[in-house]
Structure formats: structure tokens, C-alpha cells
């Protein structure tokens, strides 16, 4: 079995009294698109720095591509590409000079520098303005150039911190398409930090949610929904003249947390999946004509918010 692309075990990093990353343990498989979610200050950027050996961990074990970033930082960084939160480009240089600089820094073979820079400029639709100083670029263009830089040396693993921030919808979709291509067609691992939950749900095989430096949950969005017991929402379709009766019947069930009328249907919020047969049984026992009881897909946003609420509740506990 292939070794994981990333493995963290009980990793802790403090800055004075603040624990930025607290006993973090997780594994990311090679070729996976892994979403790393959390609000500002949750420890996402610190984790990327630890994984690249730019920061040293206070304790715990880190392995990236089988290497220890603490002792083999340059080797890890040579095989990884990082898109930092700010584009971190030299605005006094042209786009092409910025890319050539990083191609040389990352050890792209000298004979391939020209071809690689031209290819990424083309890929990110910057070729026609490659000779201009980056200071004159729009925010979206700078973000595209920073992405081009991260792809330049064809890394095995990509750390992307908010890759679509500042991009227009078309460019954001193109980046999403590229991330999927890199993972599914080229087998590269993508570690994606994002606030964009729709993007994470669309792109990521698995996600981890960080809360105050701690791992709140990890898994596929579906598994997470089950694991955290996120509330389940259903649409109930009954005969139009029986809608109020149905509402009355199911409102009495303890597993039904909320009922509301939406268009011609009822929308139910149940405590868990097991409540659905109970609802159906009750309606049928009351001789009501049920046409459909359809579950809503739990969104990553629902999961994220549920985890956030759980975290807040834990903090408020004495």
C-alpha cells in the first residue's frame, strides 16, 4: 500500500501562550483533494507552514511524502507547491521574471524554464501580459500568477490557501477544474484551505474542520454529516387538502424539530435519519395521502456550522 502524502500525529505548535495547532492528527492519501476548513485563526496557515518545514513543531510527528519537514524541509519544499494567502509576488518585476525567478529557485532544469513558464502563463491566461510589471495587474491576475508559480515546478503535492479568492466566477471555475485534473488525471495531492464551502464540497474528496487549532472533524462530507449528527431536512409532499392535518400529526413527534410550509410542500427538520420512517408511519396511520418524503443533501455549510456551534457550546460549558 502506498504511504500517505501527509501524516500528522499529535502535532502541537505554540506561539507564546497561544496554541495555534493543538495535538493535530490526520492523514491525507496521495492523489486526494483534501479540504482544510476553519475560520480565521483556526490554525490552517500554521499547519501549512509546519507541513513545509517553514515552522518547526513543538511536539508530534509530521511526514510529508515520507519526509520529515523539520529535518528535510528543503527536500519537502522542492516537491511541494504553495499558494500563500497573499500572492507574494515581486510587483517591480514582470510576470515572466517572477516565474523565471521561482523556476530557478525550485530547480526547474534550465533547458525547461522557458517552456514551463510559457505553459503556465498560457494555462492561466496571462501570456499576453507576461512582459508587464506585476504592480499593474488586477487582484485576480495576481492570484492567477501566484497559482501559476505554485504549479511551475510540477509539484507532487500542492498547498493552496484560498486559491479562488479574488478570481471572477469563470476563472474560479477554471481553477476548480484544474484542481480536479491535477488530482484525478495526474495523481497529485491537493491540500486546499478554503472558506468557500461550496467550492470545498464540489472539489474535495475529504475535509477536515479546524476549531481553535484542534481538529473538530475529518471525513467525507457525507460521513461527517452522519458522524456529527447534523440535523436532517426533508421535503414532505401530501395531498393539498391534507397539508394542515399532516403538519398537526407530525408536529407531535419528538424527533421532528421543526416544520414549515414551503410552496405547496412541507419542509421538516428531523433530529436524525431514523426519524423519517417514524414520520411516515404516523402519517399513514392517520390515513393521510403521502406522495413523497425526500431527504435534502446535507451541505458542507450545514456540517461546518453544526461543528462551529458544537465548539462554541463546548467552550461555554463550565
Amino acid at each position, binding site marked *: 500500500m502506498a504511504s500517505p502524502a501527509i501524516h500528522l500525529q499529535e502535532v502541537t505548535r505554540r506561539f507564546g501562550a497561544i496554541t495555534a495547532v493543538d495535538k493535530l492528527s490526520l492523514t491525507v492519501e496521495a492523489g486526494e483533494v483534501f479540504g482544510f476548513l476553519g475560520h480565521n485563526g483556526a490554525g490552517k496557515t500554521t499547519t501549512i507552514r509546519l507541513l513545509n518545514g517553514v515552522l518547526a513543531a513543538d511536539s508530534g510527528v509530521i511526514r510529508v511524502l515520507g519526509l520529515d519537514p523539520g529535518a528535510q524541509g528543503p527536500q519537502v*519544499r*522542492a516537491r511541494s507547491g504553495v499558494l500563500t494567502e*497573499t500572492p507574494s509576488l515581486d510587483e*517591480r518585476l514582470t510576470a515572466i521574471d517572477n516565474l523565471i525567478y521561482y523556476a530557478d*529557485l525550485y530547480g526547474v532544469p534550465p533547458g525547461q524554464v522557458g517552456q514551463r513558464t510559457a505553459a503556465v502563463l498560457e494555462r492561466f491566461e496571462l501570456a499576453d501580459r507576461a512582459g508587464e510589471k506585476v504592480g499593474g495587474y488586477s487582484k485576480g491576475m495576481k492570484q492567477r500568477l501566484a497559482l501559476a508559480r505554485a504549479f511551475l515546478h510540477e509539484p507532487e503535492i500542492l498547498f493552496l490557501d484560498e486559491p479562488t479568492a479574488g478570481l471572477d466566477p469563470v476563472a474560479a471555475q477554471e481553477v476548480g477544474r484544474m484542481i480536479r485534473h491535477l488530482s484525478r488525471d495526474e495523481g497529485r495531492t491537493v491540500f486546499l484551505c478554503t472558506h468557500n464551502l461550496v467550492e470545498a464540497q464540489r472539489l474535495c474528496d475529504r475535509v477536515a474542520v479546524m476549531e481553535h487549532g484542534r481538529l473538530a472533524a475529518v471525513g467525507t462530507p457525507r460521513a461527517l454529516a452522519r458522524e456529527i449528527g447534523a440535523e436532517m431536512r426533508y421535503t414532505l409532499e401530501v395531498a393539498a387538502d391534507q397539508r394542515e392535518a399532516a403538519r398537526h400529526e407530525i408536529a407531535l413527534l419528538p424527533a421532528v424539530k421543526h416544520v414549515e410550509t414551503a410552496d405547496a410542500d412541507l419542509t421538516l427538520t428531523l433530529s436524525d435519519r431514523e426519524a423519517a420512517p417514524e414520520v411516515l408511519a404516523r402519517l399513514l396511520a392517520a390515513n393521510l395521502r403521502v406522495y413523497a418524503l425526500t431527504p435534502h443533501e446535507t451541505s458542507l455549510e450545514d456540517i461546518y456550522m453544526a461543528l462551529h456551534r458544537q465548539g462554541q457550546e463546548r467552550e461555554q460549558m463550565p
Partner: protein
Amino acid sequence: MNWRAMRTIIRKDLKVVRQTRAVLIPLIIVPVLILVLMPGIGGALLATADPDSEVIRDFRRESAAFFDHLPAPISERLAQYDDEVQRITYILFNLFFPPMVLLLPTMVANVIAADSFAGEKERKTLEALLYAPTTDRELYLAKLIGPWLAGVAVGWLGYLAFAIVVTLTTLSFMGSVFVLDATWLLLIFWVVPAASGLGLGAMVLVSSRVNTFQEAYQLGGMIVLPILLLLFGQLGGVVYFSPLLALAVGAVLWALALGLVVYGARSFRRGALIARL
């Protein structure tokens, strides 16, 4: 050592200096002013001066204490000249300008090195650089070498321009090239690289610990003080550059510069730098 990455960082730092007018213009104007215009005007004025004029006689009389207490080798050299203009010319260019030649590489290395980490931080380009596949030591040394080369180049080219200008303006009455001897050679090839090293050794250390170019320049700029002391020492007749003194000054500057570089390289941690971003 990842020499290619180091060369890349050095080349880029020097390229940015060449492309940044705010840095480049002072780096050209100051050396031109001190090592071309000032000696050129001085040489031209002395070339037209009458050794028997009132001005020259007054100057010589007022500077009697200075001339009377010169070290023996300089006095012997001055005795070979026929008139006071030649002696004043020799003193002017051999005693007052050497500290200037030392000041420039220190200043140049200082200005460029101030931009090294603090400038990258200010321009928000540092984070991507810290993710480069170099060790901490390679990154630190690469940031040192560019400013050092620039400082040495300015020192050497500045001296070359100075020697040409002085020779062209004074050859008619001095009869020979008098700003090229063992002391000058030691200053240029031994002391100038050391002075440049001292300037940047201090500055890169400071630059990695502060947030802006200005902060770095204000703190690290203090390293030119020993050079200024030498200048005032020469002006006041307390210190005179001789081959022995040039050797000693070079040795002290090299020791200080290497000490700062070694300390800086050992204490430099990219993690400490990135944690402050």
C-alpha cells in the same frame, strides 16, 4: 549547498536594485559626487593654483601644525616635491580620500542589505521566498552575497574613477600617478571587501529582525560610525593610513564582519521570520 538557488536570489536582488530608481540613484550619485566630482574640482583648482600665491602661503601657514607632525614616511615623500601646491595635492588625495573610498562600499552594502529581509517583508514577497527549497543558511548567505558584491564593485570602480580623475587633473603639475601605492592597494583589495562585509553583516542581521527598510537602515546604518571615526582621525591628524595600518584596519573589519556573518547565519531561523509575518 544549493548554489543555483543562491545565485538566483543574488541575481534577483541585484536586478531589483538596478530597476529601483529610489535605490539606484543614490548609489550612483553619492560615489560620483565623492569620488569623481569632488576630486575633479579639487584637482582642477590645484592645477591652476600658483604656489607663490597668497592663498597657498596662508593655507600652508595655517596648517603648519598639521604638516609639521606628519609621520616620517609622509614627510619624506612630501620633501621630494618642489612646491607647496604639489604637497597639498598629495596630502589632499592620499589622506582625506581613503576613508571616503571605505565609506562608500559600507554604505552601498548597507543600503542594499537593508532591503534584504525587511524590504521583502514590506513588499509582502518574503513568505513565498521562505517556502523556497533552500536551507536557512543558504537563504541567509544568498541575501549577504549580493549586497557584498555590489559594495565591493562600487568600492573598486569608485577607486578606479577616482584614480583616473585625479591623475588626469593633476598629472600636469604632479608628474606621476601618486594615488597608487601599497597603502592604496591594501585599502582597495583588503579593506574595501572587509568594510563592505561589515556593512552588510550588521545590516542583514538587523534586517531579519525588523519590519521595514527604513527601520533596518536607521539601525544598521550605525555600522558606518567606525569608518567615520577613521575619517575624522585623518582630518584631525590623529590617524594616518600606512600599509601597516591598512592591514590592521582590514584585519579588524574582517574579524568584525565574519563574526557578524557567522552569528547571523547561526541564529537565522526562517520560522522566526515567518511567525512575525
